């Protein structure tokens, strides 16, 4: 009985935080069907969802956000694993170089936006170097990466931050696999590439997958980077939604919440699909957990 009280007390603050998250999700769902008594809206309806799905700007925003999330997460994972292997192969798994690799994790997103503007805008440093080397005759010839519907500036900003994140996130696990099983394979005559490709990489998939999911969901819902580096149209989902949320037209509020609900649904769905994929992959490889 005493233990039960102890458990309840220990879990109380965590429970409170989870209740806050549940309240937020509940609010989104309730307001998305048009139930906001404070605004005089009391009749539940699915109209707002219908409206949302017939709006061209919303559908293109979904596409923009999915594209940003997909490119950022896939490329960060591939390049992050490469950097992690480079650290392992060069024996730099601790100390000075590792601090430098970890630095981008500490740099806030808004600052990364500043970096990208200074390096990759049409009169940024990259274009200047191109001009100095005679590759460009004019700054306008430099590809427009910023403020354009391709959202490449946003994607590159995420890459700058997330490649090191993946490298650091998978380092300990990949390092231990590589030092034990990978090394064994190499002693038996496998090439370094083959031991990576057939032993270390497949064994590390669950850790890489977790990093992938964290980045995907984050980039999918991210706000500052698409706001600061993206196009005025089409907007990213979070930017589009916040615009509707702050609109003086109060009927936009339930619309914004319907957009939020769709966003929530999409990220949970992706996590679910992804989680079950990893689970199956794990089982097929005979992994314990």
């Amino acid at each position, binding site marked *: 009985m005493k233990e039960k009280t102890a458990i309840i007390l220990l879990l109380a603050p965590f429970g409170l935080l989870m209740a806050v998250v549940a309240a937020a999700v509940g609010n989104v769902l309730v307001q998305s069907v048009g139930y906001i008594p404070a605004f005089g809206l009391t009749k539940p309806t699915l109209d707002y969802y219908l409206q949302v799905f017939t709006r061209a700007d919303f559908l293109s925003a979904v596409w923009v956000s999915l594209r940003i999330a997909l490119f950022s997460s896939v490329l960060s994972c591939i390049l992050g694993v490469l950097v992690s292997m480079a650290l392992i192969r060069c024996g730099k798994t601790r100390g000075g170089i590792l601090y430098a690799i970890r630095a981008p994790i500490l740099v806030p997103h808004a600052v990364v936006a500043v970096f990208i503007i200074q390096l990759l805008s049409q009169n940024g440093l990259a274009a200047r170097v191109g001009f100095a080397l005679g590759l460009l005759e004019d700054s306008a010839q430099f590809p427009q990466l910023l403020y354009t519907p391709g959202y490449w500036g946003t994607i590159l900003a995420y890459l700058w931050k997330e490649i090191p994140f993946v490298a650091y996130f998978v380092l300990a696990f990949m390092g231990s696999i590589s030092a034990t099983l990978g090394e064994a394979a190499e002693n038996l005559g496998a090439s370094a590439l083959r031991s990576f490709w057939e032993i270390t990489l497949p064994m590390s998939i669950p850790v890489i997958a977790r990093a992938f999911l964290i980045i995907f969901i984050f980039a999918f*819902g991210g706000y500052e980077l698409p706001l600061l580096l993206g196009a005025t149209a089409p907007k990213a989902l979070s930017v589009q939604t916040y615009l509707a949320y702050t609109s003086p037209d109060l009927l936009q509020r339930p619309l914004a919440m319907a957009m939020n609900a769709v966003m929530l649904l999409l990220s949970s769905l992706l996590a679910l699909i992804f989680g079950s994929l990893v689970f199956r992959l794990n089982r097929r490889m005979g992994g314990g957990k």
Partner: protein
Amino acid sequence: MKKHPLMKLVLVIALGLIVLPMAVVLLWSVTRRWPWPLLLPESYTLRTVRELLTGSASLPKLLLSSIGLALTVAVLGTIIAMMTARATELHEFRGKTLVRHGAFLPLLVPGTVFAMGIQLTLIRLGLSDTIAGVILVHLIAAVPYCITIMTDMTAAVGNKLEQQAMVLGAAPARAFFEVTLPGLLPGVLSSMSMGFILSYSQYFSTLIIGGGRVKTMALVLVPYIQSGDRALASVYSVAFVASALLVFFVFEGLLHALQKRGDRI
């Protein structure tokens, strides 16, 4: 293990790409004029630094409130994580796996969705536009990561030593604070530095829940970026990153000192 020249090249490129933008922002922060197509600024100025130190947003106050807020989130988040981890790792109860998995659920709710969803509730509770409200929403972002760290740490340390101390007559509180907590300290420090960084770099949730009353570095920096003033955006970026690194290295330093002491004993 053989070193591969290609792998070395990968590291050199990675380090170059990490350091380059930081160097450029440092240069931009004291630039007066840097016209196309020059590779280096044409003239320098300290106007930006003066603006940073004495301008409309007073830096010491801003740093104090941002760092104070983030440290509060770091401490509270770590305490909550420590309690949660203690419950799931050292006790048996039904729904244990539910709690373990549930800890990750907040990560599935995008930050913007959460902030817009909770605003009405916080207004009703009188927490909107207050520092307490901002701490609460930052905690939601930080705690899942803190719990991951503290769960691993608690599982590794266990409670055998603590129980021995109690068998020898120590009160439960004393057994925890003098036996278990020192063992957990490395985890506590990395959980705190994670919580600090997550809170320190929040923008959207501070904007919407703080309502402009709660000022942080991120909130001051973004308008400078939007207005296109590269020099001022740079000088605030430098202050932002430098202060984050400073706090991070204090945590790292403490961690190293602890590990050294641990080695000696």
